[in-house]
């Protein structure tokens, strides 16, 4: 029944050590999103893919990159994690646009030591 799957659910990395978070979807949706959510804050959009077209939010740090090798998978790469990057990272999908329902995964909680 799982529609948006995120692995792992918890990830521990060291300061400055690259880390990759993964997301897959069984909905065949065109759009995939990555959000960062810090404790007691609202989710903040980092970037999204409309099919293969990458759209970066203006204030997303260069330290964050993303890849979408096919419709089903999307990856979030953090090149040099800092302590401030510890957060929940949420992946979401929608069929074709922002006004449509977004389906969120359970999130990956990242801890940076």
């Amino acid at each position, binding site marked *: 029944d799982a529609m948006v799957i995120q692995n792992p659910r918890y990830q521990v990395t060291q300061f400055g050590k690259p880390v990759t978070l993964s997301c897959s979807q069984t909905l065949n949706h065109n759009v995939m999103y990555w959000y960062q959510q810090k404790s007691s804050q609202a*989710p*903040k959009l980092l970037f999204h893919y409309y099919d293969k077209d990458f759209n970066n939010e203006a204030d997303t740090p260069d330290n964050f990159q993303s890849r979408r090798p096919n419709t089903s998978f999307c990856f979030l790469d953090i090149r040099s994690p800092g302590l401030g990057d510890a957060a929940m990272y949420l992946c*979401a999908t929608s069929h074709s646009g922002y006004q449509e329902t977004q389906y969120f995964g359970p999130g990956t909680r990242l801890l940076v030591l």
Partner: protein
Amino acid sequence: LAKTTQPISMDSYEGQEVNITCSHNNIATNDYITWYQQFPSQGPRFIIQGYKTKVTNEVASLFIPADRKSSTLSLPRVSLSDTAVYYCLVVPTGANNLFFGTGTRLTVIP
């Protein structure tokens, strides 16, 4: 981009109806109003979306007055499992950003 304002928190007893109001004074003609629910350590979940007047589904109702400068999410007969954060979003047509406001933390008390 229309920003939203919601109460930071609300408490309610089980079995009561809860109404959470969201202000969006700068809403544009083609913007939709969408509400999401988020439980701790989970991703947000879509509850309801509307454009004007009233929308109802199996979970909630959404009331939008004629001027569309606010909207009210209504949860009938809440239970303890409705304890969550509720986010109101205004989503413009063709927007290139999706902005979650501060959300309302609803606590249902036995």
